[in-house]
């Protein structure tokens, strides 16, 4: 073995400790707190993804149960369809996003929703909207000259109980 200075040894041990602590922290956040990154959902053909029978033929919001929704969103240059979604506060929404042309991005500000949208793939994440207000969803991947105009809104409306 080789000689390593005493202070440098301490530093090296500390570095290893810090890195292991980081790994455990993100593991805890993903397992216990359930903060997940996107994974495998399904593959689609971008050329036929808007044809009848595909859920993106008529993209939009569908209610699964009270307070539980799924939102099918189609990304294409340079719009999201739909570009506005309204849900009551306290709703849990699962987003299924795909692209029929180039790569896009999908981020909803002030949430943990942040996904790439890749033709041929379906991006899926779930978020809970407790605070009423307007959330902006933006395309964050360069998709051509109109990229900066590609955005939409999620309007979270106060529930009646909250209004009273």
């Amino acid at each position: 073995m080789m000689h390593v200075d005493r202070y440098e040894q301490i530093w090296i041990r500390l570095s290893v400790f810090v890195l292991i602590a980081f790994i455990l922290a993100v593991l805890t956040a993903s397992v216990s707190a359930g903060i997940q990154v996107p994974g495998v959902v399904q593959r689609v053909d971008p050329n036929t993804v808007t044809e009848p029978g595909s859920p993106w033929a008529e993209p939009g919001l569908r209610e699964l149960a009270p307070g539980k929704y799924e939102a099918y969103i189609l990304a294409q240059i340079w719009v999201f369809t739909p570009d506005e979604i309204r849900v009551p506060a306290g709703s849990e929404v699962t987003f299924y996003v795909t692209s029929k042309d180039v790569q896009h991005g999908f981020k909803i500000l002030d949430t943990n929703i942040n996904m790439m949208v890749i033709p041929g793939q379906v991006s899926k994440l779930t978020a809970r909207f407790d605070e009423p207000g307007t959330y902006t969803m933006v395309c964050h991947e360069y998709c051509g000259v109109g990229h900066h105009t590609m955005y939409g809104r999620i309007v979270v409306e106060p529930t009646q109980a909250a209004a009273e």
Partner: protein
Amino acid sequence: MAVQSMAQTPDEAVRDVHAAEARFALENTLTRWLIGIAMVALSIGILLGIFQGFEHAGLDLYRFIRPAIKDYYQGLSLHGVLNALVWTTFFIVGFFTLAITRSLDRPLSHPWLNVVGFVLMVTGLVLTAYPLWWNLATVLYTFYPPMQADWTFYVGLTLIVVGSWFAGYGFFATLIRWRKENPGKRTPFIALTANITMAMWQLATLGVAAEMLTQLIPWSLGLIEGVDPLLARTYFWFTGHPLVYFWLLPAYISWYAMVPKQAGGKLFSENLGRLVFWLFLLLSTPVGFHHQYTDPGIPTGWKFLHAILTYGVAFPSFITAFTVCASLELGGRARGGKGWFGWIRRLPWNDPSYTAQNLAMILFAFGGISGITNASYNVNLAIHNTTWVPGHFHLTVGAAVTLTFFGIAYWMVPKLSGRQLFGRRTALVQAWTWFFGMLLFANAFHLLGLRFGVPRRTMLGAAPYRDPAWTPFLMESLVGVILLTISATLFFYVILMTVLAGKKLTKPVEMPVAQALDQDKIPAWLDSWKPWVWGAIFLIILAYGPILYQFISEMQPTSPGFRVW
């Protein structure tokens, strides 16, 4: 090289130095051309950065340069390709051509390999520049398909990479020849680590080579109808992350082995330094999914495996922080510095080459921290593709690497031109303005991304969702951009004036080479290529093999090309 001054210096030693320089005539010519082209590319790249800074702040200046540059995105494509790919690659190959041959004290063994490499790189640059200039490749420097550039763009970039491979072959051949000529001797630190960097680059670029050869080039030529965008992204990021180490390791070589000499110190622990570079060879490549945490279609388990390996590749940088600081402390104390922090003031802050590189190290500390944030699996959701990311890499490649290369240029250009650096004070102002400019720019971009989720590489001045709350930060970034512009102008002024009007040197500048403090015998495993190269290949197969096999066997080449600009 300054031969005419020999009459005034009868000193035999000086005569020997001149004779030594003459042996490296071809190497010096190659290096001059490579860093010259790098600097021209950088000057154009930086110029376009100014337009971006003003655009973000709400002032569209592109109308003044139409039709040369049509809009923000064309300028941004040039900015990324010229700065991140051309400036870096050309400078690194040029720097290594000089550093390896001086470190081994022998010329290149097969110089034709390096000449071929140079010709390929220049041909590639011309082919890449043509579609960028004519707005046929406004695809940014990540060129994600199915956005489709002109075929010349892909072929050009490929040739630049292949040219850098040939340069690498030339370096490997020279090292092998040196080892035969010097049996039993340990390879000098600079030659070893520069060759490790080039070996890592050979492995790392297999990804982008596969992307270009099996997908983008045949597709852009109309030979195949479609590509699989996720597979292409995966190939891209196979190369994309080690690419940042290809930029960074040459700076590390200077920090480990050259800057301590300039500071009057010694390399604190050379053996650990060698270990650090071997670890980079081992761990740089099998980490690419940390750029794809938010991608659909990649199993989360694979992403997590790459997250763990990414923390692994942070480890050698942690060691570097200690070793480099300790090496500089030796210098500060040798120069009479006392106390816990007193030695810092005694460092050679009047030397622009030193100062630029020390400031680069400080900025890299911040860049490293935001890099660990990016790499931290689900934490990445908070900042992925926001301005945080360009904030981060302007601290790393834009500051740590580029400012270090400026510092290297401050001794290398005098060495290559035989002229004294013109305007030492100007060069010092240059280093400090780059430091503060980058600090302001990066601070603003990190905050905009983290607090407001502002998307990166977006024409923010025209975005309908632009929020007035962003304005103070965009103004801060603009102040940074203006400082950087001043700094870049000073850099090109100093370099041009040195070459054109610098005082002729009576003896050549020598490459700074730090002695090691630890003179113990080197363990055999730290001077042995095989275990590390095989280890690197093994880890790449482990981290990419099964998943790439699956992606390729289930490939859906369904995406036709789109021209969306």
